[in-house]
């Protein structure tokens, strides 16, 4: 009915809206890429040009050699990996319990967890900062990771519970009749079947952990221990408004956003499917 192949008014409108969307949402990133590859004369050139006269890839080399950004990225990688593994270890059993057990207070706890997901980290970080001073956990990665895991638990439990709910109970019951313990049935039956859900949890937790800013901004003062989000913000602060460092700041920012964007572009179909099913389910 719809696709007659000819270009009607509606189709033109749709194409026009796509062009606007792509320009508005990719334009700024494209401009940053262009800036990051410019030499200083190119940056000062007026009118500004999109294509640098020479691709100044050495800007990235400068960031690698003369800033803490590579160190910060390594910190983020380490913190993210441990956070993601730790979160799974804690949330898989919890999500299984919420999916399979009926106990008093279950609804209330799930509701509380939903509330925790909505709460700004700013609210909890104020008292946590005080505890961390006394426990000597400021400026440590393990202290940071404990908080990261905590803030990932609510979302991950809800996500995994949704996936576990969709697995027929008969499946794990069959395994248990065959003599498997509950733990064995989870490891051998539930986890393999729920792999797409676990993959989604890993994905979203990776992106979230990589993006965390406020928590490390407050808890980690030492530059060489900071994750990339704080590292690049501090770098932006030190270079400030100086025009002659715009290209370097652009390069540093792109390096910082690259992992999240790369993961997204490669897995976008999967991500969109999870987002949509999550949105429908709530």
């Amino acid at each position, binding site marked *: 009915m719809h696709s007659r192949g000819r270009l009607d008014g509606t189709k033109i409108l749709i194409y026009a809206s796509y062009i606007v969307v792509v320009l508005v949402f990719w334009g700024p990133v494209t401009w940053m890429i262009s*800036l990051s590859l410019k030499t200083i004369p190119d940056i000062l050139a007026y009118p500004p040009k999109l294509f640098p006269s020479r691709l100044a890839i050495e800007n990235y080399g400068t960031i690698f050699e003369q800033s803490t950004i590579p160190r910060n990225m390594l910190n983020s990688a380490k913190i993210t990996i441990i956070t993601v593994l730790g979160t799974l270890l*804690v949330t898989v059993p919890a999500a299984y319990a919420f999916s399979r057990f009926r106990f008093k207070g279950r609804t209330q706890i*799930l509701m509380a967890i939903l509330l925790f997901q909505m709460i700004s980290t700013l609210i909890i970080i104020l008292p946590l900062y005080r505890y961390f001073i006394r426990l000597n956990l400021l400026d440590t990665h393990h202290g940071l990771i404990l908080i990261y895991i905590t803030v990932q638990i609510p979302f991950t439990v809800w996500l995994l519970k949704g996936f576990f709910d969709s697995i027929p109970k008969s499946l794990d019951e069959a395994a248990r009749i065959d003599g498997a313990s509950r733990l064995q049935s989870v490891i051998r039956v539930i986890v393999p079947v729920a792999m797409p859900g676990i993959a989604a949890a890993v994905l979203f937790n990776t992106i979230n952990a990589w993006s965390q800013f406020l928590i490390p901004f407050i808890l980690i003062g030492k530059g060489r221990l900071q994750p990339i*989000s704080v590292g690049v913000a501090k770098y932006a602060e030190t270079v400030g408004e100086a025009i002659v460092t715009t290209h370097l700041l652009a390069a540093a*920012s792109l390096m910082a956003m690259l992992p999240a964007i790369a993961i997204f572009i490669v897995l976008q179909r999967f991500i*969109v499917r999870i987002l949509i099913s999550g949105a429908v389910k709530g």
Partner: protein
Amino acid sequence: MTRIGAAKEFGSRLAWLAPAIAFLALFMVLPLFDVVRLSFTTASIIEPEYSYTLSSYAKVFGDKDFLWSLSITFIFVAANCALQIPLGLLIALAVHAGRDRNVYGSILARTAILTAWIIPGVLVGILWKTLLSSASSGIINHFIQSLGMERIPFLLDPLYAVISIIGANVWGGAAFCMILQYAGLQRIPAELYEVSRVDGARAWQQFLHITLPQLKPILFINLVLITISSFNTFDMIATLTSGGPAGTTEVLTLAAYIQVFTYWNMGRGSAIAVLLLTITVVMTVVYYKLFQLDEDIAE
């Protein structure tokens, strides 16, 4: 089941939940109660001694700067709701209509908007700071000039700074609304449209009488979620304006941070945090009611 059996069963069930509950109890519930307690104290970051008082709240509400923070936060939240939801819906409609009609580029448009969403808030701030700069790298001012208008000192002028934080947040957040609405659109039964087409309804009539009413629940949920996330915005504003110029864009989260880490007033900062917490709790209850989770969970 025997009593011992029941206790054993209870114990083994508790073990599944224990790690998650322990994390949440220690690093979420405890600080939540503590922030409320601290808001009634004279605590500072450095001095270990403090006493209990109501003065934090009195000082907070007697402070003109705080009242400004409160106002600007509400403006920021209202503007984000008013802009993100229609924009998200518009793009969702375009992507949905495009897929229906096999138009090329619907995936591309969806990917473009979601890319902005995946960029961490800190970097959204740095990105827009660069784009809005008055220097030659500030491409937006170049466009404005080429239209024959004067350069705009976006981040130095109070009004434009407010517009800038709203614009950058809409840019980063619209994708979430788009995805939510897009999911909602896919759930509307196609028969509804077919029947109305037979009745001779025009596209805008279909939108008013079918699409909008069918989307209503999702739109409400979207409103609640955008409200909460806008109230909680910190990262993007911290790098875009740092609350400036002269505190104009100092939303509640920034105000709390500054009270605690610049003025070392743990009590006053906590009082602001408690206010944020109250708003979050109210909005979450609304969200919960909208979903009627009790039915969903009890199944």
